[in-house]
């Protein structure tokens, strides 16, 4: 009896499934059409858009304004997005799919700006600069999410942790008259909530969505209680100094990039530091390998001597630290006082940014910046005397979040053991 090996072509492993590839490609083509039909065709040919390339009030890293013919620019933006969409349909971008979707989204927003500002001028650099600032809580929320989820804990209470931290930071900062004490106070309160989340989810194995909800309700109630009981009665409890802009030497003088990235307050720099630390720690160190193994296959980790429970507590606490920084940003880095419910869903949007960024720090930063840009366009829209009601622009981040959730979760990107308590036999 002779045998021959039967060669059978088998499954292709896709980074992006064909269905998603198709859906995303079509969306990109639709974006191109939108830019073309709604924006480009509604602008008369001779109008120009002037982009101011230096944020107001800054004299480092100045750059001349850019003046461009509105319609022609819109045509080219539509063309590029169309090309992206067609390439996506025909060949696909593989692992870079989400990146290209992000670029298409960015171009859509740019096109919107060009269209709105046709015949007039808009401070693009100022918008980008505020986009970076608005991205801080979202990105830190995403980092907080990564730290919890990479070790297997779903943390939907980032919102609550941020809210609590924003209030505590105000009080601690106002009382001590020291902004750093304020920051630490915010972190401490967030970590405390993280510990409760950890005990509920890890020790008592409560459904992680419920334990997160408990913390969200608790934070909303507690901050409301303290705000009404004390902050509104005693105003000097709610008057912290704010972290000032700190231009980084040399870097801040780079045209465009300098004012946008390197002439910001400490929170922006912290966001970049955490990004680098997280990226290196998770993927290049022993700690990171063990940490991720707990989120992927806790039982395997356990049989190799890794303490699953301890690792998860560490992850939840670190998640709390980062969420605390993100919370302190609201009061110490952005507004300068606490208002009830001021986080306005940023913690949840951060989770969406994490998902869009494939549970990777760098990807999450990109997603966070995109959300921040959408936010900053929304808040600057009134300056452009737009026909679109401001409430609708304010919906944009929430709508984008839903679109991201609907379209960009592929199987097998999320940590495999996420959401499951570890039961030692």
């Amino acid at each position, binding site marked *: *009896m*002779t*045998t*021959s*090996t*039967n060669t*059978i072509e*088998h*499954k*292709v*492993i*896709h980074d992006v*499934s*064909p*269905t998603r590839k198709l859906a995303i490609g079509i969306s990109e083509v639709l974006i191109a059409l939108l830019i073309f039909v709604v924006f480009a065709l509604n602008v008369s040919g001779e109008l120009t858009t002037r982009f101011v390339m230096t944020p107001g009030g800054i004299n480092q890293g100045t750059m001349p304004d850019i003046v461009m013919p509105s319609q022609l620019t819109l045509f080219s933006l539509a063309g590029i997005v169309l090309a992206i969409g067609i390439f996506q349909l025909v060949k696909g971008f593989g692992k870079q799919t989400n990146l290209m979707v992000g670029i298409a989204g960015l171009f859509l927003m740019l096109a919107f700006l060009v269209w709105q500002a046709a015949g007039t001028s808009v401070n693009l650099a100022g918008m980008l600069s505020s986009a970076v600032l608005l991205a801080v809580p979202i990105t830190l929320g995403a980092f907080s999410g990564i730290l919890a989820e990479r070790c297997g804990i779903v943390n939907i209470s980032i919102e609550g942790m941020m809210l609590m931290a924003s209030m505590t930071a105000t009080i601690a900062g106002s009382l001590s008259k020291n902004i750093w004490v304020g920051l630490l106070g915010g972190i401490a309160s967030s970590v405390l909530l993280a510990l409760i989340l950890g005990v509920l989810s890890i020790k008592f194995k409560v459904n992680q969505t419920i334990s997160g909800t408990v913390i969200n309700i608790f934070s909303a109630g507690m901050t409301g209680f303290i705000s009404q009981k004390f902050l509104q009665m005693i105003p000097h409890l709610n008057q912290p100094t704010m972290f000032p802009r700190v231009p980084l030497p040399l870097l801040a003088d780079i045209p465009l990039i300098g004012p946008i990235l390197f002439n910001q307050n400490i929170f922006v720099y912290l966001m970049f530091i955490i990004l680098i630390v997280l990226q290196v720690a998770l993927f*290049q*160190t*022993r*700690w990171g*390998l*063990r940490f*991720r*193994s707990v989120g*992927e*296959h806790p*039982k*395997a*980790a*356990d*049989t*190799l*001597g*890794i303490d699953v429970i301890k690792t998860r507590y560490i992850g939840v606490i670190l998640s709390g630290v980062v969420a605390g920084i993100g919370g302190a940003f609201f009061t110490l880095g952005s507004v300068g006082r606490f208002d009830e419910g001021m986080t306005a869903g940023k913690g949840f949007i951060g989770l969406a940014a994490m998902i869009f960024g494939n549970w990777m720090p760098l990807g999450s930063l990109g997603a966070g910046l995109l959300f921040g840009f959408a936010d900053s366009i929304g808040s600057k829209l009134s300056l452009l005397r737009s026909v679109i009601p401001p409430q609708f622009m304010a919906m944009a981040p929430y709508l984008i979040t839903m679109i991201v959730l609907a379209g960009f979760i592929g*199987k*097998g990107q999320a940590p*495999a053991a996420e959401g499951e308590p570890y039961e030692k*036999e």
Partner: protein
Amino acid sequence: MAPILELKGITKRFPGVLANDHIDLTLNKGEILALLGENGAGKSTLMNILYGLYKPDEGEILINGEKVVINSPIDAIEQGVGMVHQHFMLIPVFTVTENVMLGNESIKGPGFLDRDKAAQRITEISDRFNLQVNPNFYVKDIPVGVQQRVEIIKLLYRDAEILIFDEPTAVLTPQEADELFKIMRLLVEQGKSIIFITHKLREVLEISDRIMVIRRGAMVGETTPQEADKSSLAAMMVGREVELEVEKSVSKPGEVVCSIEDLVVVDKRDEICLQGVSLDVHAGEIVGVAGVQGNGQTELVYAITGLLRNTSGMVTILGQDTTRFSPRQITELGTAHIPEDRQQDGLVLPFTVAENLVLCTYYQEPFSKGVLLQYPVIMRNAEKLIEDFDIRTPSAMTSVGTLSGGNQQKVIIARELSRPIKFLVASQPTRGLDVGSIEYIHNQIVKKRDEGAGVLLVSPELDEIMELSDRIAVMYRGQILAIVPNQGISKEYIGLLMAGVVPEGPVPIGESTVVEATF
């Protein structure tokens, strides 16, 4: 010289169960000891104690003649004990190197991973034991057989001297199993010692130096492959003489009840899992689908029962094109489906026995009138089926989750077989059950065939397929490589097909006709 491992009087109680009853066991250096027993006999408990996952209530463990305490897998690893788990302890999104080094990492500087150094060591080990593993591949991208070798490398990387293999052949083709046996031989030749846990008699006789049989938590006998044969081992394992074959008459195939033509299925992750499958099932015959798990059997069953949409091709059941039918429409035609995962697919565990018994039919008369459920009728139905199918349950209102696995399966069997069906799809109907339940379920299936139903039986247990089927279809990577009548076909022939090798020449009927019971 003291034996490398000695277990003395190991006892472990779980609530209501004596899982291990004063078990003594010795393992000599350089031997392969087979630990044979039925599902649930206590083999795994014993090995989990040795591996530090459970704590024994009584008894002691001696390694090289010295008493040791093993409280965790770490202790076990430090004592040189390693285990290849039945369900691999590998992380698919990590590379082979990362998986192997995890917990025992090579580092440079302050905690930075030194992947190259670890990879080099893995290559050395791989070469020494002829394991052929590339350390840089992601585990998700390598075949199951290689994944198992990664597990072995994990142990050797940690200098394990005693290797426990827990049902290692369950996921392998017969050929891959032979490869594994060669590796095991090489390991003992180089001085390692192996405990091999299994319930497959053939493998025990083939590979082991010594055999210990465990039954209901107690060690019931020790023998060697030279002294024992299959029936004596089977009797020792089950505690009574067992019929190694189901009594069954020659089939009388009637008309086609289910016809599959050129079926192509792409799963939800858009991976092709069936590519052009064609198969007919006739009334009054059992068609067995053999194949290593994960070669498209599940998808085939899902496509037939309407749980998965096909991309192209056609399924015809009882003369109707059911390709676009919903599962309910297919059920209503007279199809029954015993799912492979009874707890996930077959039952709603918190619901009562009565509710589970009408899970597919609750919306029909007489169980409901209009939208109103008729609980008295549902209860009467339950009481009758509990009686007829001998379901051991305190009452019809007991929730199914509290019943034993065998009785849970009986609930499904009762629900599916009590209906007037013409076509039965049974997917791994005896997975994880004890011998008594297996015999019962096999008899029920054969009875249904004799009543004139067509049966499609899917099982990764080749023995079960060969025992029950009238015809055997072998699946490999989403294709049916051959369909052969089950008359004196050799196991080796099917095994080759399962490995994707199509033997040339005529089907060798009448070579060896070994059929053994499936435990």
